[in-house]
């Protein structure tokens, strides 16, 4: 068995309870269980997390970089979508 035969898995780590899982990298593994162990061994050596997700890279559907203009450019001139036009009353904290 060589690493080349193993599919690629993307690794996501939740660094603390309450935070979201973040993509940190990828590992090769024969199956999902092994991928979790590899992710643990490769990416959590310095206490980086409290929870791991792995997902086969092949299962991720990605947007096409060629279409980036059509997908993302239209948002460029819609500054009003940022919630920066509201006056926040002094009394409101933790908004």
């Amino acid at each position, binding site marked *: *068995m*060589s*690493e080349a035969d*193993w599919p690629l898995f993307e690794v996501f780590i939740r660094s603390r309870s309450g935070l979201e899982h973040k993509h940190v990298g990828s*590992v*090769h*593994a*024969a199956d999902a*269980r*092994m991928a979790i*162990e*590899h992710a643990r*061994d*490769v990416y959590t*050596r310095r206490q980086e997390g409290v929870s791991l997700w792995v997902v086969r890279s092949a299962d991720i559907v990605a947007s096409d970089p060629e279409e980036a203009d059509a997908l993302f450019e239209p948002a460029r001139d819609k500054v009003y979508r940022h919630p920066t036009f509201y006056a926040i009353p002094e009394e409101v904290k933790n908004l």
Partner: protein
Amino acid sequence: MNATAKSREASAELQQEAHWGYVLRLADTSLVLGQRLAEWIGHAPALEEELALANISLDLIGQARLLLTYAGELEGRGRDEDALAFLRDAPEFCNLALAEQPNGDFAHTIVRQWLIDAWQLEMYVALEHSSDTRLAAIAAKALRETRYHYRFSRGWLIRLGDGTAESHERMQRALDALWRFTAELFTPDQVDEHMSERGIAPSLPELAPRWSARVEEDVRMASLARPAAPPYPWHGKRGVHTEHLGHLLGEMQHLQRTYPGARW
């Protein structure tokens, strides 16, 4: 001093020696196995496995450091962890002979690891309740690490044993080759008995069936055959070693022997 007091003192001395000897045995098995696993660095079949083996190696060396430091204190002759690790010769090492067996192919490494992980698991579970609170604390820390080591080695045992024709054959060959060193795991000697009487250590004959049942179940899951040959009782813990330990120590101790006291 009357005869009773003298014999009481002699017996206290014996107890003390058994105590430090016992802790040293645990330390040496972890140290030697950790050193063996470190030999895989730069040679493992995949980057992820290399890190896994190195992680386990570091866990084991960490256990050895705590245990060696404690053993040095029990001995009371001023030897610290480094003196015990780097300045003793093979006959003074008292690790299980199984731990010093060469890495061989990945199958040998995994079978050796799995047999010792299953042993350490039983030992640390029991030692967590040791009457020696320092040893109990070390065992509690080591147990968390060992649970993962066992999960790793058992996982590979089953994958490869129940894998291709070649992986199955290699695993069976490794199991057959290493099985003879397993008698030592649960054969008690005077030190073990002393420690068990004082509630410091578990009774080995009581642990043996638990280990045996675990091993039996894993071997079945891995589609392997438990070797029929009765294991030969090695005495690594009494300093009787195979020729492999000397070579391992030669490499491990080279720096401290050549440049005494070297630090970085």
